[in-house]
């Protein structure tokens, strides 16, 4: 299992598509920085192909006033959870 990290909003960058196409069936995807916009209900459709494997970083949601506005399908983790995701993954790939 690999962890993919995306820091761009799907509304402003198409890098999410590259990440998705590189993902294996068990891989996970973590949204950080402006990427957390992808966790919003109006944008989460871009990630509809990876149900249950989409995460968003709490601190970056909070910094943007978006905490509590995420789609229910997104798992919110803090930076400690970010570290834990990297522990569980054999490798991490960052998309930016």
């Amino acid at each position, binding site marked *: 299992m690999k962890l993919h*990290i995306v*820091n761009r909003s799907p509304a402003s960058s198409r890098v999410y598509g590259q990440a998705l196409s590189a993902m294996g069936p068990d891989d996970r995807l973590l949204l950080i*920085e402006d990427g957390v916009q992808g966790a919003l209900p109006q944008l989460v459709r871009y990630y509809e192909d990876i149900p249950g494997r989409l995460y968003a970083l709490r601190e*970056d949601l909070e910094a943007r006033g978006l905490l509590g506005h995420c789609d229910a399908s997104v798992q919110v983790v803090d*930076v400690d959870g970010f570290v*834990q995701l990297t*522990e569980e993954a054999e*490798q991490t790939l*960052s998309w*930016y």
Partner: protein
Amino acid sequence: MRYAILLMGAPYSDQASHSALRFARALVARGHRLEAVFFYHDGVYNAARLAAPPQDEPHLVDGWVALHDDHGVALQVCIAAALRRGLMDAREAARHGKEGHSVAEPFELTGVGQLVDLGQRCDRLVTFGP
């Protein structure tokens, strides 16, 4: 676990440096060993000795130095990326006939071979891009 961080974003231009520093602190707080942070591309500006951000803002350079002092994290700066951006230690400044130097210990100018080495000997390498 043994970790390394690759940082390629310029400080204060995008969030990469802040994200990397926050992640680094969380790593050591969880008991992991952070072997090194490798500063590459515009990330080398994190090593600017003369950085003087406003006092009410996070001081990234001091943050990296604290990680080194408290947890033995090596701060490795790609020498090729640094020199062409005007970042050099006293030794390189002398070699290039420059009056001052802009990089000081504990940051160390090193080659990209060190990055390859980190990738091979660490359990995880996490990249923070611009």
